[in-house]
């Protein structure tokens, strides 16, 4: 088999799917890209058994064939070429690939493509079409809040909840939680599934160029189709915790504050907090919030005062500053609303402006116990 392809075009497509390939693989063939040539259409796939991603591109060819080519060496080579046509020639016995550029020839080993793990077929799938930018934002706003606990795999993913009223995306690690809701998007059927972190990261990077994404899913797998890309992944099996029950409904104490100034204050003060717990203390009274931190081991101490709009009882509440910083970083509004009920109950962070129609963002963070 033989085909001619633009070097930069091939590199661009391979970089989209190259992120799947792990540095150490149990199956040696997974270190390869699978090239599936069907005359003028070339489909390249990569897989880690959990996630498989493929891209389709046009090439000049009149042959057909299936071959696995080492990914690392191919990517490294492609990166060095300026734009030019490359010719790939693979002999019928699959003994090796010969690549010809303007500069010379390069030979690399290849494997029989039929040994590459097959795409799982999606049976009894239902599907929804989502605007690509909405999906990208949903992933970006939720992904950081997922957990890393191997003992609780369900929390390592993002929970997709589709209904006829809205689409909801939820992530939590049991200390913080993000609920991103789109009321302007609907699904015909009600469905829930948990998407693992890795494919979402790949999606977030590559989905932005597309207009719409077609999401189809069944109980075990989900498939995302956009532009020339198909991403197929296994879902996380298990029951997602009942997140709705832990979001406090009654929050009489409301703080309205400039997001950027709160963020920079907390960033500064948290430098002085304990390096392991990152604990800061917020003291709310009158029209002022006091942010303080101390690290007794090194006698570090910081204290700042910020003007704000606060309605509610005076109170003192402790947080892990890293959680709050992550959340404030992932919001884009000018002002945020912090809704609190008690020092030992969850605090909510909600953007106060600059929200799209149909967008509903809620971030929640659990406090740390302060001993007074």
């Amino acid at each position, binding site marked *: 088999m033989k085909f001619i392809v633009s070097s930069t075009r091939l590199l661009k497509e391979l970089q989209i799917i190259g992120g799947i390939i792990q540095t150490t693989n149990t199956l040696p063939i997974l270190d390869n890209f699978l090239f599936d040539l069907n005359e003028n259409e070339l489909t390249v796939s990569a897989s880690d058994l959990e996630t498989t991603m493929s891209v389709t591109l046009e090439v000049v060819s009149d042959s057909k064939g299936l071959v696995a080519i080492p990914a690392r060496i191919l990517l490294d080579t492609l990166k060095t070429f300026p734009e030019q046509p490359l010719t790939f020639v693979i002999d019928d016995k699959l003994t090796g690939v010969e690549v010809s550029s303007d500069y010379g020839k390069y030979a690399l080993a290849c494997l029989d493509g039929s040994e590459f793990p097959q795409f799982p077929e999606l049976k009894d799938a239902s599907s929804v079409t989502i605007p690509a930018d909405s999906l990208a934002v949903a992933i970006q706003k939720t992904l950081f809040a997922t957990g890393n606990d191997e003992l609780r795999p369900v929390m390592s993913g993002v929970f997709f909840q589709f209904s006829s009223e809205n689409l909801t995306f939820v992530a*939590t690690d*049991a*200390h913080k*939680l993000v609920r991103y809701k789109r009321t302007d998007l609907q699904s015909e059927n009600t469905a829930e599934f948990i998407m693992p972190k890795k494919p979402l990261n790949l999606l977030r990077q590559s989905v932005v160029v597309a207009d719409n994404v077609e999401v189809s899913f069944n109980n075990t797998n989900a498939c995302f189709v956009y532009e020339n890309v198909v991403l197929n992944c296994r879902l996380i099996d298990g029951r997602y*915790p009942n*997140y709705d029950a*832990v979001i406090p409904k009654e929050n009489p104490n409301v703080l309205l504050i400039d997001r950027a100034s709160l963020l920079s204050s907390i960033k500064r003060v948290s430098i002085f907090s*304990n390096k*392991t*717990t990152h*604990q800061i203390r917020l003291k709310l009274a009158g029209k002022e919030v006091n942010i303080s931190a101390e*690290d*007794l*081991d090194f006698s570090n101490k910081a204290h700042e005062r910020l003007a704000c709009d606060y309605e509610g009882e005076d109170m003192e509440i*402790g947080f*892990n500053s890293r959680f709050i910083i992550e959340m404030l970083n992932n919001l884009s509004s000018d002002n945020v609303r912090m809704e609190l009920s*008690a020092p*030992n*109950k*969850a605090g909510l962070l909600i953007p106060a402006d600059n929200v799209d129609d149909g967008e509903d963002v809620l971030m*929640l963070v*659990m*406090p*740390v*116990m*302060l*001993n007074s």
Partner: protein
Amino acid sequence: MILNKDLKRASPLGRFGGAMSRSIIHMDLDTFFVSVERLIDSRLNGKPILIGGTSDRGVVAACSYEARAFGVHSAMPMRMAKEMCPEAIVIRGNSANYSKHSQDVTEIIREEVPLYEKTSVDEFYIDLTGMDKFFGNYKFASELRQRIMKETGLPISFGLSVNKTVSKVATGEAKPNNQLNIDYGTEKPFLAPLSVRKIPMVGAKTYQTLRNLGVQKIQTIQEMPLEMMTSVFGKNGEVIWRKAQGVDNSPVVQYSERKSISTERTFNKDTIDVEKLRSILIAMAENLAFQLRRGNKLTACLTVKVRYSDFNTHTLQARIPYTAADHIIIPKVKELFEKLYDRRVLVRLIGVRFSHLVGGGYQINLFDDNEEMINLYSAMDKIRQRFGDRAVQRAIGLGVKSIGGMNPFSGEPPALLPNRRR
């Protein structure tokens, strides 16, 4: 050759570019527990006294010089001590009392000196570097000692030299109730004629090994090449060798953070009652968890220790996310114990230790914790702070006595029995 080169590099002068030598005092209260008891009851003066556990398993925590004349020493089983010295007066001791007197001494030292380190209830290191010109270090130290004895009524000894090791050995030589100054440059000759047992760090085991090698006097170590010591004792060999040369660069550190908290219990009679063991462990874990919360600390490593009647000691530890919550710690401690206690043999001792401590509050979990639990902890902690450690506790631990009592984060060293200190 090596010896000279090495000495030069490690010399206390090196740290200050050869410009200045340090002056370190080591102060030690003589037979501290006995002295405190004598303050309370002067009839004890001049009599042999033993302080320590009175049960069969008890050991001597402290004894007066009169008792030492009979061959009694601390850490000896009380039963043996009573046989050797039947007329001795045995006192159980009261650690709260000792802590109080220890604090009185600390208070005086704090007032007088720029930098001190309290290594145990009755031992202090003081750094007087740079004060010689203005006060005269030996004179200053003697006056400090006189003031402590006058104001507290407790006899105290000190050694003054260029570093901690030499000062500590000097204190040992000065005792009882005396003082000793080792002039700069005379450290080596001072140490040379002494037994190797006097080097801090040389315990019974190391001593035995050294004696088997035919080493008795520190002078022999001084003359040995460093390589010989490291080949026998590994890394420690180098440290011992340096100390024998009178070289010790360790600084006087005022405050050292507690790295772990622990509690353990030796039974009067070995037991195989698993229910009892379990309830003791729970009571221990509950009390330590309270100490954590009171000290505003979190732990990330739990260790359970079991010593069987044949003195085989087994420990098992587990890393957990930072926590100070009973409902995470207690089940984990139970789990460790179930895994650890696999020999159906009588148990002599059990213990629990929390390490990897860090300052901070407990991060509340969205799904595992609920408001009632969190409120319950703060309510129970409030009761305990006001009415004592054992004012409220889990019913399973009710039968367990003598656990808790001390605040491990007060900055004071624990009032441990001297035999446990090493």
